[in-house]
């Protein structure tokens, strides 16, 4: 197995990891890559933040939106 993926491949895997379950080898390859690549670690965090934020879009315009009045 190729141990070191190029960053470009990593971005594809990170994105697909949000849409399908990655295989064992793919997950290991990502781990190995993240251990030495700060840029890709940042990319991974950005993708997670993006997902979190898009889920919140419908909740409210401001910070006090959905659920604030519910019990």
């Amino acid at each position, binding site marked *: 197995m190729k141990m070191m993926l*190029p*960053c*470009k*491949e990593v*971005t*594809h895997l990170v*994105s*697909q990891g*949000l*849409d*399908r379950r990655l295989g064992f080898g793919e997950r290991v390859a990502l781990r190995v890559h993240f251990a030495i690549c*700060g*840029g*890709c670690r*940042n*990319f991974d*965090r*950005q*993708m997670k*933040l*993006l*997902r979190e*934020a*898009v*889920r*919140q*879009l*419908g*909740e*409210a*315009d*401001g*910070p*006090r*939106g*959905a*659920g*604030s*009045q*519910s019990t």
Partner: protein
Amino acid sequence: MPPSSDFQAKLEGQRAYLLRYATLQLRDTDRAEDCVQETLLAALAGEAGFGGRSNLRTWLTGILKHKIVDAIRRSSREPAMTLEPEGDESEFDALFDPRGHWAEAPSAWERPDGALERSQFLAALEACLEQLPARTARAFMMREHMGLETEEICKELGITATNCWVMLYRARMALRLCLEQTWK
């Protein structure tokens, strides 16, 4: 029992918000207005179902989501849609050097934890979403906002799983680039 005029006024108060929400996902003002209208009518008819249990906006948004999914399903059955992803992956090649490493590594975004930061981040995100090509944006919102599985999106848009992943990849890459410029 006829709906109370008080309730009706409260519903009207949410119209502008709902319209913005629907337009963001449908990219079509007419269809967005139809969805909002249907939502408000359904809400009026179902006032008892609301019963003040939860936040009115949250309740309405829940109804609206279903109306939007229905509208997407209707339109995806109409022909005359291209089945290819918009653009292609090479669009992002410039971000990497010939060996596939970052030409400019992604920065560490500050987490928008405070209330103000959060609403600023969401506003930046909304502006970036509006710049995506329509079908790419729709696939992305179906996946990330509506929480549909890739299989459902493929079926609705009539594309293969691989094309679907490519579209979602392109949406994420474009949004990331856009947010790199507006959010640091």
